[in-house]
């Protein structure tokens, strides 16, 4: 890796100070946590800086942590990639459980449009400034956000399932 993790860490802490924390290298991908208000700036810095040059957004995922404290119940992970230096970086930001909101990055990366819609659809994470934050994979009429941990996976309409075989009775035979 020509682009050293220490260099990335230095540049980020120099520019953003306390908003970037928790630097770690998880299995050859450098990860860091960013305060949710600074996410857009951090990603723009990572993209525009000539040395860092993280010009490709690989993935954007939403995560639900219902067991955390209220301020950190949702998370959004951004994975960026620099093809020239062949370096990946992962940015994680935690959002409030009752009102998860973060600024969109559709102005930086065109491909984040549908990825953010998917996170909205599945988790209810609002991306402020997104041009078209509608449901994408689920039905438009759906009210709840299905990937949250409390939402059941199985279809509720089946009448032929015997609860005993699924271990769902209080006394399992």
């Amino acid at each position: 890796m020509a682009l050293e993790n220490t260099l990335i860490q230095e540049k980020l802490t120099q520019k953003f100070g306390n908003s970037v924390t928790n630097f770690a290298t998880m299995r050859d991908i450098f990860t860091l946590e960013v305060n949710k208000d600074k996410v857009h700036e951090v990603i723009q810095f990572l993209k525009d800086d000539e040395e860092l040059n993280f010009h490709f957004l690989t993935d954007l995922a939403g995560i639900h942590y219902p067991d955390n404290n209220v301020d950190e119940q949702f998370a959004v992970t951004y994975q960026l990639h620099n093809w020239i230096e062949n370096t990946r970086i992962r940015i994680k930001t935690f959002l409030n459980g009752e009102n998860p909101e973060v600024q969109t990055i559709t102005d930086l990366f065109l491909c984040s449009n549908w990825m953010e819609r998917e996170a909205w659809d599945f988790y209810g994470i609002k991306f402020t400034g997104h041009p078209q934050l509608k449901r994408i994979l689920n039905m438009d009429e759906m009210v709840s956000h299905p990937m949250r941990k409390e939402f059941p996976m199985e279809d509720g309409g089946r009448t032929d399932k015997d609860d005993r075989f699924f271990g769902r009775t209080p006394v399992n035979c």
Partner: protein
Amino acid sequence: MSETKTNMVAPPEGVSGEGFFATKLSDVVGLARANSLWPLPFATSCCGIEFMATMASHYDLARFGSERVSFSPRQADMLMVMGTISKKMAPILRQVYEQMSEPRWVISVGACACSGGVFDTYSVLQGIDKVIPVDVYVPGCPPRPEQIVQGVMQLQELVKNESVRRRNSPEYKELLASYNL
């Protein structure tokens, strides 16, 4: 060329003579319908690829009369639903079924179409017989082309033995009413 052992379809029971053949109307109509079923391939996922393999030259569904695949519901006889139908897709499936003209039959190909398959989730319809009446179920994930062909052959048996007045019978009307059709 006289040694060819093609299996010709057996003629129905009847009285034959010089230049004529007398049989029941329903047998003739059944024979004609069974050997010229035009499918409407409603291919959504992996089973659709097995359907493509069935239509290709190795397994060749065309020799059973399904030479012309029709994507227009008005011109198709049998609706082959292949692949997972999600709840978002169910109204469209229903619309396509309603647009088909009588006589029409439905084959549900693959575990997902028959009963939801592996996907017992909030977004997958647990079997297309929740929205449309089905005649033949072909299980498998995906079913081999031979199984799909057998499904079509079973449908042919059904079609051959159907009475001409079936579509006007009260049982059929009740069946359609139970689906709100």
